[in-house]
Structures are given as C-alpha cells and as structure tokens.
C-alpha cells in the first residue's frame, strides 16, 4: 500500500517555519583523525570570509598542527571560557558569547566532544543544537566512528569502543562534506607527526591506524555520505513533484528487553530504518513475570529507552503475559515490515520446553521479515546467576516447616490407619500439602512439597516400607502425578500472584493520576491546583517538588513547593529558566545541565509553555525509572492542562468584565445625564437671572437664587465624587490605606461632614465604651458611614428617628444604621446594593443609586459584609460588619495602665 501524501497541517507549517529560521549545519566528515577535516573547514571558512560572510571561530582545536594554526590567522574568534574543575583551569567554547554575538556562521570543531562538567550541556552537539535553534549556521567536524548508529560496527571493526557519540538525528538535516585521503597518505602523515604528537602517534598507529581499519572506516563514512545524498535527492524530487517509485511505508520494529544487548539491537534497527527510509519503532513488553525488576535491570532498560529516544525511534511500551503474542500483535497493528529481535546466548529450561520467544515470534510472524541478532553469552549468564542468588534471598523457611509438619501428621495417620484407609486414600491425603504449599507459596514450595511427598510416601506407605525401592511399579504413576500437580498448581498461583502484584502497581499509578485529575479538574484557583500537584508527587516519589510560573513580566516565579529553600537557589532557577525558554526537559537525569540538583519538566499544553515543574531527588543515586518518568510526564501534562485551563478561564473572565464595564457605561450615561443636567439647569438659570441685574428681584429673591446655585453645586459635587469612587472601585485602582483607628472617631467625622442635615433630625448613637481600635482605611469607612446616614436621611420622613448602633464581639464589629422610612420589598433587599438600582422612592429623591454600591465595594475590600433588613418594628436597617483584628500590644507601660478606669460611663447621648 503506497504511503499517503500527508496534507500540510498547521503544526507542519509551523515546523517548516521553525526549520527555515534554524541555522544550517555543515559537517566535515572524515574516516579518522588526520584526514584534514579541520583543515578543510578552515579553508571553506576563509573562502566565506573573502566573500564577506560574517564568520567567527567558536572553537577550533589546532592540535598544535602548524598548517592548521596558519589558517586560523585572520579569522575573528570568540575567546574560550575558562572553567574551574577540580583545581584545573579548563577551556571550553563560550556558548553564551556566541549567542550574544550572533554571527552568520560559527566554526565549532569536534562535534562529538564532551563538555567540561559544569557547562550548560553535557555534550557539544547540544551546544550546536542551541546555536542552530538561535538561527546561527554552524560548521563542524566529525569522525565517522562517533556517529551513534555506527558505534558498535566500528567497535567490532577496530576493537575500540568509542564513548563519545553524536545522535544521528542531528546529522539528518546537516550538509555532509566528506573529507578523504588514501590510507597510505594518512599513515604517512601520522608517521610525520602531522596528526598526533610523536609519542602518541606510535601508539595510535599500532592500535587504530591499521590500513584495514582505515579502509573500513572510509567505506563507512562514504556510505554515510552517499545515503545522505540519496536522501537529499529524494527530497528534491518529491519537492519538485517528480513522480517515482517511492518505497511503501516501511516500518522497522525493534523488540528490546532490559538487557544491555538491546542497545546493539536498537542501533542495528536504526541503520536498517535509515537505509530503508522507514520509521523506527522500539517496543518493550512488560510482563508480570519480570516483577520485581532489579535495580540494575531497570537502569539498563532506562538506558535502552533513552538511546531509542536519541535515535528518534517511537517508543511503545506494552503490557501482557505472552511476549511473542504482544510483539506480533503490535507489529500487525503498526504494519511493521521488519522485526529485529535478539537471540539470547543460553535458554532457560522453560524456553527449551515451550520454545523461546524468538521461535514463537518466527512461527507467528507470517509475512513480517524477522532479523535475529545473536547475543553475547557471558552477558546472559551473568544475568541468570543474578537471578538465582535473588531467589535464594527470597526463600523463607516458614512454609517448609508448615508443609513438613502437615506431612508428618499425614504420615502418622497413614502409619496408624494405613490398612483401614487403603493406599489410594493416603495418596490422596498427600495431595493436600502439595496443593496447599503450591497454592499458598507458589512454584518453589509446590515442587518442594511434591518431592517430599514422594519421598515420604515411598518410605512409609509404599511397601517395602522404609526403603526407596518400589514393589508395585504402578506407584510411579502416583509419584509422577504428585510432581505434576505441584508444578502446575505452583506455577499457576505464582503467575496469578505476580499478575495481581503487577496490576496493583498499575492500579496505584492509574489511581494516582485519576485522583489528581479529579482533584484539580473543577478547581479554578491556580494555587490550589499547584498545591495538589505538589502534594501528589511528593506522596508517590521520594522527591522535593516545586512549580514555577511566569509573572506578568515573563520571569519565572516559584509559586509553590514542598519545601522552600532548595528551589530558591540561583543556579537552579537558571536551569528552570532554560527549560522555560527552550520548552525542553533539563537538569538532573538528563544530558542538558545534568549537574543541576533538580530535574525540570516544561509544562506544555498545545505548544504553549505555561511554566516549569522541578523535582529534586532526596537521594541523587536513585535515578528515575522509565515507568516513574512516564508517570511524572503524565503528571506534568495534567498540570499543564490545568494551568492552561485556568489561564483561559481568566481570559474569559477578563472579557466578561470588559462587557460588564460596557454595560456599566451605558447605565451610567443614562443615569448621569439626568442627574447632572438637573442641577446644571437650575444653576445656569439662577446665575443668568442674577446677571440680568433687574431691579424687580429684591434682596430675598436674590438670596433664594444664590442658595439654589449652592445646592445645585453641592449636589453635583456629590454626584461627581460618587462617580469617581465607583470608577476607582470598579477599576481596582482603589488602594487601601489601612491603619489602626478609633471607630468612634470615624463616626464623629462622618457626622460632622453631614452637618446641618443630621442636626435637625432625632439622631441617636448607641455605642458601648471601650471599642477596640480597628484596622481600616479611615477615609473609606467614613465614606460608608456618610453614605448610610445620607441614605437614611433621604428615605425617611423629616420628623422620624435615625439610630446608629455599634456592637462588637471578638471577631467582628457591627455597625447598624436604622431609619423608620418605608420598608424595602423582600425581593429587592439584595438588589439595592447594585449600581444604579433605586427602589423605594416614594417621591423624587435625588441620587444616582451609587451610594450603597460604593459602600458595599468598600466594605468588601475590608473583608466585611453589608446587607439590609426590614425591622419588625418598622423601618429599614442597613448593617455592615468588619472583621476585628487583635490590636498589637503596646509594650507594658505604666502610662497606659494608670488611667484605664476613668472612661466615660455615659455612652448614650443625644446630639
């Protein structure tokens, strides 16, 4: 089936744009040191400079070769950075300086180099990735032995295992420039000391630079370059719409285990996949039989999976009982055409009986080509002996004692009543301990009890007694059945138990994820979400957790953590910032900034990064297992989703607020236009009359007119003030200027402000002496009292009473303003605090309907409450309460103590 042409989706387009912005990588590839890679690179660089290209040297190792050094003269260079490492001063490429300088092209020698510990990245190719991502073109050099997927072939050819490797993925998009000289010339150059300093050269000649080796390496590098040419050709043809016989969508599937041998399989798979231009799948099957996995195995599995990741394979982790079936099912599901599987050196007993996994896979593979790679024997053996010693440790003597005592009992019964029961029934009785042992304690104990049963049965029951010889050979069948039952029951129960264990583990992980997602699903407060995440992760893993989110300026701020100190460290923050900027995981357990204390995961949802989650292990030696990593990743993506959801909700709310304020503006215009025009009309009218200076207006009339103007002006002033207050409250610009104040003083100030209007009324204050100070904004609370009293004045008859009542408890101070005006319909009791809501207006009462809304805003800013009640004895109470805080102590002071007694007792006074 030919592969369908993929339609361009937005992600691809984005990736394309990203790709265009990226710098281009040019690799000068050689078969070995000394073929002239650096030389070739520098020559190209000189040409570029003469063409006027902005090119700098980021790092070139001249190896003291004079011809190379000569070429370096005249090319601008970025000075190396000096690192202190274990009292040595080490030079390293200054990545940040290059990023800051941002040249068009930078030369970075030795792509496979491992950086000095303490550098940002563990490997130089990661530095190069960052340079490319920043849009800087890079020229670099590489020996073919450092290419990851050639790693073990070269180890086989040369016998030298190269530790510094470069993942193939980085070379995929690179332009390859092959540097080649004949082997004789290379050896000649080596002998002349042009490659290594003389004493090194002799050693290198013997070990590595044998003509055979060099030729093999040359072939590899040429093949590599040729493959790249093929690929480029194909891309070119595709892009230009040239039709051709494109290979059908091949998929190579590598089956791996926790064996170190799997690394070799993955590399092999990668080579085949590249050769066939096929996708690479790496599949791992979890079986209950493998639990519990040993630390060493877990580490190795993690290593294998990381390698697969580096080689850009898709990793699939399966769970199942039968490895072969799972593998075949996956191969069919994903249409894999090639399967790669390793053949272990030795086989276990079970495998010999039922056929190894490899045999099963081959048998069931049908039209899938299966490549079987033979493994090395010693590794496997090492593996097995490990397992045995493990089992020994697991042994426990309790089951054996129980089985033996049970057997002794049965033997006693058989000895005494043997003739009465008959041999067949006794044999049946012996099945009991076998069944019990194997069901309860598994295979080991099952086998043990069957053998014991056979021995005892033979010695004590089967004639001739107390002898191993068997008179009636038919008993051998009984023996055989004993053994069979022991083995099969034991095996069954062992597997059952393992499966239970395994599903329990899975269950725990799933339920952890489920409970977290449930906890944070409905929460709209970001702090709560982050706290739950931190709590969950610390519950499951033995780590410290912190979550950093950006603030308004985009700087990361620690929002929550399981412990505060460890995440405040400057350098750890720098790592988190790097993760945030690059949207990639970094820190402990990774190759980027691996020296960091913590490991940092980006919180990404829909390609947008929302923050960084960091974990610090309590014990650095415990590396994260694959399953832990994927659980952590699941946690981070859940967190990212939640954070994304909340920030989206916030945006929606903002939009709502905007439309609310739009509504407010409309209501405001309607209400204000009336309320502003009325006083303005009277004022303009009165003033123009006065300016006429007509003698028909006597002194009294003039005075009346002037008072009209004054009243109009006061009314407008109040209106404008109310509007401004409302606007400040709405916009959140109102800042509380809190301090300790005496509520009585606030009320007095409010009363004075109302002046004449209140003085003509029957107004009482009921306030107990000794009120504590309250922590409020004086001016704003005074405003509330003024508004409430003003309201009471407006909505009650001129002759009626007004009462202000203050009560306090330990937690609250309550102020009630009561008037005996008409009551408020019950359904409007809440609405009166809405803006522009005016309900009980028996006559035309001036006002905007803002007073109560402003009061409500102010009281709520003070974390208080305000409400209205219709009193039973008639009239309306508006009540507000403010939280009462403990007044800080004034240091023991005789002055204050001395006169506490002579407070005024008269609290109930009339004005």
């Amino acid at each position, binding site marked *: 089936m030919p592969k369908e042409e993929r339609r361009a989706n937005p992600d691809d387009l984005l990736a394309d744009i990203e790709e265009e912005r990226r710098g281009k990588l040019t690799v000068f590839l050689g078969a070995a040191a000394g073929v002239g890679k650096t030389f070739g690179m520098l020559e190209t660089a000189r040409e570029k400079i003469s063409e006027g290209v902005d090119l700098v040297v980021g790092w070139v190792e001249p190896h003291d070769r004079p011809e190379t050094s000569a070429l370096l003269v005249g090319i601008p260079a970025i000075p190396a950075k000096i690192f202190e490492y274990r009292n040595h001063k080490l030079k390293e490429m200054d990545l940040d300086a290059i990023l800051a300088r941002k040249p068009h092209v930078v030369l970075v020698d030795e792509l496979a180099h491992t950086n000095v510990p303490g550098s940002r990245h563990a490997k130089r190719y990661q530095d190069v990735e960052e340079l490319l991502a920043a849009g800087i073109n890079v020229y670099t050099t590489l020996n073919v032995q450092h290419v990851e997927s050639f790693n073990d072939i070269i180890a086989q050819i040369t016998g030298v295992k190269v530790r510094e490797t470069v993942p193939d993925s980085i070379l995929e998009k690179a332009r390859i420039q092959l540097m080649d000289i004949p082997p004789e010339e290379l050896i000649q150059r080596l002998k002349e000391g042009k490659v290594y300093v003389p004493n090194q050269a002799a050693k290198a000649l013997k070990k590595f630079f044998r003509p055979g080796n060099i030729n093999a390496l040359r072939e590899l590098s040429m093949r590599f370059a040729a493959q790249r040419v093929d690929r480029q050709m194909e891309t070119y043809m595709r892009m230009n719409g040239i039709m051709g016989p494109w290979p059908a969508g091949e998929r190579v599937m590598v089956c791996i285990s926790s064996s170190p041998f799997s690394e070799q399989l993955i590399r092999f798979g990668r080579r085949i996949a590249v050769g066939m231009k096929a996708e690479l799948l790496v599949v791992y099957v979890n079986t209950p039989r493998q639990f519990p996995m040993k630390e060493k195995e877990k580490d190795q599995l993690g290593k294998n999976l990381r390698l697969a990741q580096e080689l850009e394979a898709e990793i699939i982790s399966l769970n199942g009982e039968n490895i072969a079936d799972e593998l075949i099912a996956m191969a069919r599901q994903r249409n894999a055409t090639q399967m790669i599987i390793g053949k272990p050196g030795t086989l276990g007993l079970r495998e010999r009986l039922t056929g190894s996994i490899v045999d099963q896979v081959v048998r069931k593979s049908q039209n899938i080509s299966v490549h079987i790679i033979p493994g090395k024997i010693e590794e496997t053996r090492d593996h097995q002996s490990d397992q045995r010693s493990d089992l020994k440790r697991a042994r426990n003597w309790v089951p054996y004692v129980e089985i033996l005592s049970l057997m002794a009992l049965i033997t006693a019964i058989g000895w005494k009543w043997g003739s009465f029961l008959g041999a067949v029934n006794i044999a049946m009785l012996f099945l009991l301990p076998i069944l019990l042992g194997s069901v309860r304690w598994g295979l080991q104990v099952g086998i043990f009890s069957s053998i014991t049963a056979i021995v005892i049965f033979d010695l004590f029951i089967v004639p001739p007694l107390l002898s191993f010889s068997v008179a009636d050979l038919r008993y051998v069948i009984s023996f055989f059945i004993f053994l069979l039952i022991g083995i099969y029951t034991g095996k069954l129960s062992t597997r059952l138990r393992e499966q239970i264990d395994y599903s329990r583990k899975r269950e725990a992980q799933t339920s952890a994820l489920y409970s977290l997602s449930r906890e944070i699903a409905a929460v709209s407060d970001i702090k709560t979400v982050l706290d739950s995440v931190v709590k969950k992760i610390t519950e499951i893993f033995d780590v410290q957790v912190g979550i950093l989110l950006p603030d308004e300026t985009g700087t990361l701020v620690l929002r929550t953590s399981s412990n505060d100190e460890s995440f405040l460290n400057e350098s750890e923050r720098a790592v988190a910032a790097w993760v945030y900027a690059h949207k990639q995981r970094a820190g402990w357990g990774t190759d980027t900034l691996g020296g960091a204390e913590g490991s940092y995961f980006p919180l990404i949802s829909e390609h947008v990064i929302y923050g960084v989650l960091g974990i610090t292990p309590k014990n650095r030696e415990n590396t994260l297992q694959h399953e832990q990593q994927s659980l952590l990743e699941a946690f981070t993506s859940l967190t990212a989703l939640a954070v994304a959801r909340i920030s989206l909700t916030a945006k929606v709310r903002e939009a709502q607020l905007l439309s609310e304020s739009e509504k407010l503006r409309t209501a405001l215009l309607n209400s204000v236009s009336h309320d502003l025009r009325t006083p303005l009309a009277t004022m303009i009218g009165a003033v123009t009359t006065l300016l006429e200076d007509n003698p028909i207006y006597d002194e009294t009339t003039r005075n009346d007119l002037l008072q009209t103007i004054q009243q109009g*002006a006061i009314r407008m*002033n109040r209106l404008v*003030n109310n509007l*401004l*207050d409302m606007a*400040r409250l709405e916009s959140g610009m109102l800042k509380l*200027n809190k*301090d*300790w*104040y*005496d509520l*009585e*003083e606030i009320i*007095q*100030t409010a009363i004075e402000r109302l002046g004449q209007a209140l003085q003509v009324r029957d107004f009482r204050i009921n306030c107990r002496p000794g009120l504590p*100070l309250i922590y409020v*904004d*004086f*001016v704003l609370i*005074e405003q509330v009292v003024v508004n409430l009293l003003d309201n009471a004045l407006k909505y009650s008859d001129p002759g009626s009473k007004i009462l202000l009542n203050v009560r306090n408890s330990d937690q609250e101070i309550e102020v009630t303003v009561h008037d005996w005006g008409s009551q408020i319909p019950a359904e409007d009791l809440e609405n009166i605090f809405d803006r522009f809501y005016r309900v009980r207006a028996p006559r035309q009462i001036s006002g905007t309907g803002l007073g109560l809304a402003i009061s409500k805003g102010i009281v709520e800013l003070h974390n208080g409450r305000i409400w209205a009640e219709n009193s039973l004895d008639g009239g309306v109470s508006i009540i507000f309460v403010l939280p009462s805080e403990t*007044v*800080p102590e*004034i240091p023991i*002071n*005789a*002055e*204050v103590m*001395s*006169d506490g007694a*002579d*407070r*005024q007792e008269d609290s109930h006074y009339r004005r």
Partner: protein
Amino acid sequence: MGQTGKKILIIDDESPIQRLLKVTLTAHDYEIHLASDAKDGLDSILAFKPDLIILDLGLPDLDGLEVIKIVRDWSKTPILILSAREDEGEKIQALDLGADDYITKPFGMGELLARVRAALRHAGDSADQPVMTFDNLVVDRVKRMVFVDGKEVKLTPTEYELLKTLATNAGRVLTHRFLLDTVWGPHYEKEGHYLRIYIGQLRKKCEANPSKPQHILTEPGVGYRLV
C-alpha cells in the same frame, strides 16, 4: 484680625481658580500676586516676598511636591496646599515635606479664609513663646504643666510630649508619621495604634467632650491639628 496688607502668592495654573481667589482675597484686604507655573512661582517668592503661599499641587511644569521641597530649602513661609479629594497620599507627602495646611477642592470661601488666617497667625507667633494658650487649654512649656479651665491636668510624659508637639505647631496639620516620629522615634512610624490610643487619652483629659473635640482635631486619613 490685624492681617491687612499681608502678601499672598497664589501658584495655580487654572485661571478660574486664580480669578476667584484674587477677587475674594483682595476684597479681604490681602495683597495678591498670581503665578501660573512653578518657575514663575519660585521667581515670585524672591521678588514678591509673600507672607503665605497658596500652592496647587498639579502644575504644568513641575510637581507641586518638588516646589515645596525647593521652597523649604531656604524659606519658612507658610504653604497652603490646594488638592483634589481622593489624594490622601499626596496631601500627606506635601505635609511631610513641610507644607503647613491643605484645603480640598471644591472648598467654600469661608473655610479658605479661616485657613489663611490660621496659617498667617501661627507663622507669626506661638512657636517660641513659653506659655501657649488655646482658649481654656494652657500649655506651659517651662514648667511642663498643662491647665484646663485653670485646673492642672496630670499628663504622663508621652502624653505631654504629644500635646507639646501639637501645641508647638498649633494650627498646622501634623501627619501621623510626623507625630509618631517626633514623639516616639523613627522606628515607630508604622505603629498607628500608639497615636490613636494616646490621642484618645489626651482628649479625655483635655477636652470637655472627648467625642466632640474642640482642640485636638482629626484630619481624616491625614493627621491631627491643635487649635
């Protein structure tokens, strides 16, 4: 009043206010000079030598607070601030920088004239007289004694310090910060409750009706003044 002929400099950029102040104050026999920006205002202080400066904080060329700072460098001429209602913070800053009093726009002329008179009066006298009298309240700074209606009132040392500070600056608005700093010391500027408790005690001892004080007046959100 004996204030006729006193010179008042008005620094305000809004001509309606300028006009209003000029008409009213001239009618009350003050000599008025108008300046409409900070530069003009500062020049006029040198040339006109006013007895009182009325300063609007919102000037086109320089922040009113800066003007106070510059003036207080070399002059003790009383400054009366004109400010908008909602700017408590600005008022406090202005007072802390050395302004004597403030009046909030919009204001009645009666209130303005009272403030002008008070500012001119306390600039002339009080500060260096040993015995200060405020109607029925007498503060004798030599004997460190306080009398109300001729009878001695016992004050604790801190209460006396507070009353003395208010009396020495009689008529001026003293901010909470200034009072805390002067009476208790620079570390007490945030301890508003000290001030509230002691003011309460002083009022109980010195006022006929502590809940309707006649001498120690509250300036809402800003501070206190003694009259």
